[in-house]
């Protein structure tokens, strides 16, 4: 399997590059910003596994992300679990949520799944607000572990996120090129025909929601240590909902490359913009860009490039 070996090697190279970058101890702000962009690579890739590959739109990204974050908070508060445990646990809990919502709604039309995810974030946020142990509505302070690698915890989290981004993208690429990915594409193109051609559509859909949920939870798990003060409004931030959609749509939803392009472009733009415009204005612009792409360039940048190439 030459292709897989080469992919893993490239992934490893990226991780090593990330680690080297961390040791250079350049401007600390770059690690802060880099973490956010890498986090969005994971989020956008995760969203796209369900949205782009299978065609089922998840509007409740904040729910899955925050669930990963709050699972981590719970484990930090209760047993002071190490970071790898937080990440795996956060992923598993969000995966379970994905499976549950999927099981309840995926036998119906895709629209009902989307509507359920839309309502999901609000409900989950209400539940977290009422849970004092993880801080409730007031929020909770979390103390980072001492003596981190690279001397600075944010720099360390940056490298962790590099690793998570590589894992997410590799997983997406692997799924996309496998028979599972072909089955997902078939059910996205025409679910009725796919089912009649032997594709177990329900099982594949549940697989996609579970994997997508897992990766979203994984993205959220380091969040408490990154922000050190976790409160529901930031964990359930609308940013995650719209960016998770906009980044794959801008980049292109049919391949693993699209979410990466979208995350890097939109994420960097937003990082640059936070100093000049308000966060609301930022969201407003993202909303406009999203609608513009959906109406005018639905296949995203990848689609535009493909069309230019075939001229």
């Amino acid at each position: 399997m030459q292709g897989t070996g080469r992919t893993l090697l490239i992934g490893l190279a990226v991780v090593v590059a990330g680690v080297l970058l961390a040791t250079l101890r350049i401007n600390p702000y770059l690690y802060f910003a880099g973490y956010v962009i890498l986090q969005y690579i994971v989020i956008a890739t995760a969203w796209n596994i369900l949205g782009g590959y299978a065609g089922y739109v998840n509007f409740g990204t904040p729910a899955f992300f925050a669930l990963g974050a709050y699972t981590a908070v719970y484990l930090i508060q209760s047993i002071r679990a190490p970071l790898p445990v937080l990440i795996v646990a956060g992923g598993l809990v969000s995966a379970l949520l994905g499976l549950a919502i999927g099981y309840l709604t995926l036998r119906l039309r895709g629209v009902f799944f989307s509507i359920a995810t839309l309502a999901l974030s609000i409900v989950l946020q209400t539940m977290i607000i009422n849970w004092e142990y993880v801080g409730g509505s007031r929020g909770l302070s979390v103390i980072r572990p001492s003596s981190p690698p690279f001397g600075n915890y944010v720099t360390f989290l940056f490298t962790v996120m590099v690793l998570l981004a590589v894992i997410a993208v590799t997983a997406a690429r692997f799924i996309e090129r496998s028979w599972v990915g072909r089955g997902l594409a078939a059910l996205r193109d025409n679910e009725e025909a796919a089912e009649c051609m032997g594709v177990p559509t329900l099982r594949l859909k549940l697989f996609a929601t579970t994997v997508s949920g897992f990766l979203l939870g994984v993205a959220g798990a380091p969040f408490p240590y990154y922000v050190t003060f976790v409160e529901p409004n930031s964990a359930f931030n609308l940013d995650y909902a719209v960016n998770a959609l906009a980044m794959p749509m801008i980049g292109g939803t049919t391949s693993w490359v699209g979410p990466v392009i979208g995350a890097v472009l939109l994420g960097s733009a937003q990082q640059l913009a936070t100093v000049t415009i308000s966060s609301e204005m930022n969201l407003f612009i993202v909303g406009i860009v999203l609608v513009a792409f959906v109406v005018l360039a639905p296949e995203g940048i990848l689609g535009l490039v493909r069309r230019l190439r075939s001229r």
Partner: protein
Amino acid sequence: MVATPLLEVQGVIKRFGGFTALNRVSLHVNPGERFGLIGPNGSGKTTLINCISGALASDGGRILFEGHDLAGFPAHRRTRLGIVRSFQIPKPFTSMSVLENLHIPLEYAAHERAHAADIDAMEILRAIGLEAKAHQKPAGLTQIEMRKLELARALAARPKLLISDEAMAGLSSAEVDDILAILFGLSEQGITIIMIEHIMRAVMRFSERIVVLDAGERIAEGTPDEIVRNPAVEKAYLGE
């Protein structure tokens, strides 16, 4: 000397709200048979096909395939058992090439690995006459090519029973003959075929046995000659 029927439909009932689309319909199809299913518009043919393929759940009666009751089997499982249907309005996988369209049933219904699937897909396209378009997307196909793709895709699922749902509707006379030739060829390979059609000359030439539905009920069964001479059939199509 009649072998066990490949497909047995026993008293199937299907209702949509207050409307009864199928009222205790029974029929059987023998292995290797060329079977025709005809009836005026709205008689329940497609509904019956949907119940057999698993797209719809019936409200009563039983459907047996190779002796096994299909109750509770989802559509994809029935396809793997060998019941394959093509769609009246072609439903190709639009983001994939013609060749890749065939990959799906080859991999999922016939359980072939990727490399073998490539070879077999090309063979099927060659047999059907679509190999020139193998790498094109369905959007660039003509009407008859789309119908052929539907059939090719159904073939790729390695059917024991192929249900061809109005594959010839709207085609020219020559194109109808083209599709008919393909279906005859498949029958010779041993595939049992149920043909649903409105083009009478095609059904009459193709079928060994025909069942006629009208308003959800079976009103006639027999050879093409018997059906043509049956007054009940004439009445169903032409009215009183």
